[in-house]
């Protein structure tokens, strides 16, 4: 039982990390209908800049501030150079464009900062914590990650209530209607991408201090896709809950079912889980029900 709980908690904590990436996807998809494949690359990009700045001897808070600046700038550039020219294109074209952006960021970040694994230590304690008379072991880092994710979520929820947040939701609801009541679409898109950039920064710092900042983060971020499917593309709580389910599910599966197949099922279990789920509920856990008309 204790072992089960330990695996479960470990999985949930890993799930929090997936959720962090998935959050960025959801924000952009909600506000602009763009399926942002570049979110994973943005996580690496932000992580690389942050760790790069700190290695140059910049104090941590300044590095954070500078990276925030970089991500906001990036949002502006993406809007100006990519999205603005692709207004009114089909979803698939926009999706492909973000794949292009993803490749570009991947190459650009590594061009500047190199592709070695960089250790990132932001002072989060990594001591193990023992619960239930030492039967369950939890990394205190994971607890911190959960705390950070929780804070981020709370901040996003509060943000939704602000004036800008309301404008974002209006744009998400209906581009044309939002524009006709005087909400500037271009500005909103920059804001959304900037926020997604900030979420990517948080995810990049957390992933980075757990695994080191390395190019493999991009492919790890692909795990956020089944999370999205499970939670629904348009739901922020869905992204969190989906992440938790996927994280816990794949760890439990790896431990309890994995040995039957010779292990290593962690790589695909999340996708199959999401796939099975889709067959029952095509719009995801919290997704909006799709109503189609001819």
């Amino acid at each position, binding site marked *: 039982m204790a072992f089960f709980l330990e695996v479960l908690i470990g999985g949930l904590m890993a799930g929090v990390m997936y959720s962090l990436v998935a959050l960025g996807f959801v924000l952009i998809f909600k506000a602009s209908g763009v399926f942002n494949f570049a979110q994973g690359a943005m996580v690496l990009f932000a992580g690389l800049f942050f760790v790069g700045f700190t290695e140059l001897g910049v104090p941590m808070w300044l590095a954070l501030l500078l990276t925030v600046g970089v991500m906001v700038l990036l949002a502006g550039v993406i809007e100006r150079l*990519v999205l603005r020219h692709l207004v009114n294109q089909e979803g698939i074209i926009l*999706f492909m464009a973000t794949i292009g952006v993803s490749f*570009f960021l*991947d*190459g650009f970040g590594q061009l500047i900062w190199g592709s070695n694994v960089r250790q990132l230590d932001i002072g989060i304690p990594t001591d193990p914590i023992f619960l239930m008379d030492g039967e369950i072991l939890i990394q205190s880092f994971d607890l911190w990650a959960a705390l950070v994710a929780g804070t981020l979520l709370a901040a996003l929820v509060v943000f939704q209530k602000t004036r800008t947040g309301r404008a974002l939701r209006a744009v998400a609801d209906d581009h044309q209607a939002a524009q006709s009541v005087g909400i500037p679409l271009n500005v909103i898109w920059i804001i959304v991408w900037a926020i997604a950039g900030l979420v990517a920064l948080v995810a990049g710092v957390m992933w980075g201090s757990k695994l080191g900042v390395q190019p493999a983060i991009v492919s790890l971020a692909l795990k956020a*896709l089944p999370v999205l499917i499970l939670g629904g593309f348009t739901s922020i709580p869905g992204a969190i809950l989906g992440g938790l389910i996927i994280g816990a599910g794949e760890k439990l599966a790896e431990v309890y079912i994995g040995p039957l197949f010779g292990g290593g099922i962690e790589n695909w279990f999340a996708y199959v889980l*999401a*796939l099975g789920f889709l067959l029952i509920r095509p719009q995801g856990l919290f997704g909006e029900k799709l109503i189609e008309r001819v």
Partner: protein
Amino acid sequence: MLYRESGQYKTTYGADQAIFTIPQDRVFFALLMLVAFVGIPLVATNYVYTALLIPFLCLSLAALGLNILTGYCGQLSLGTGAFMGVGAVAAWNLATRVPDLNLVVIFILAGLVTAAVGMFFGLPSLRIKGFYLAVATLAAQFFLPWLFVKWGWLTNHAASGVITVPPLTLLGWSIDTPMEKYLFALGVVAILALGAKNMIRSNPGRQWMAIRDMDIAAEIIGIRPVVAKLTAFAVSSFYIGVAGALYLFVYLGSAEPDGFGINLSFQALFMIIIGGLGSILGSFLGAFFILLLPIFLTRVPPMLGFDLSTALVSHLEFMVFGALIVFFLIVEPHGLARLWQITKEKLRVWPFPY
């Protein structure tokens, strides 16, 4: 002036339904085939065959398969790499386990196996669409390579996990030099491309396109989405499977089965975007472009006197790749095939602007 339809009357339905309705196109295509089958073998070196032409043929066949699914039927797929792997592994197993099986039969059976697997992974498309489906096909992309590694029987329990292709013979013709391999691949690709072209022009292709354009409307006018979508998955996977088998047999020679990864899927996707979604010609143009780009990027800077490190080149390659894709999508979302079409339209009225 040279290229125009006016004055070319058709008096039979047959003439009207031909693939190339005007003689200029027929002559052009005949010349192209002549160059491909006769001209290139006369001049090409082994390097050109192995580094350029053979991978080009294999990958353009894969792109063609993906284009049938994504470009014509509108079902976004990120599982191309895995399906190529299925074709390759199936063909390898047939070639090593069944003695004296005709090479053509091997390829057809490998394609059929892949078609079955593709149909299975296409089942979710009946319930879900768009990006949800793309993620669903990722399940295939991660699951299948894992299966190749874990299920030892598939690789005949090779200790290193590497499968090596036996010598190829077709009806007594032993295919071992690069030129022969090229000709064999060219033959396979030419036949399958012709098949695809005809399928697109006839009933199945039109059903796929109707589903792509609006599935509900298509259903209402009497197209069965189940049949249309699953045939698209089956045909597309058949092509991709044969492409995978070719890729292993003719190009790689030996491979690790988990090498058929997600990068290959993305590569195929880029090929059809840059080449043109919903265009047979586009699959070839896109494959050519995507294959040439890295070669170009690694060769040109040294020629211009820049000495770049390999790491730098590989990062630059990523950047240029990404930037080009965005650029293409902005300038011409319909790809290189559309540019070709525009050229033809310009030629029609040349030398006048309109």
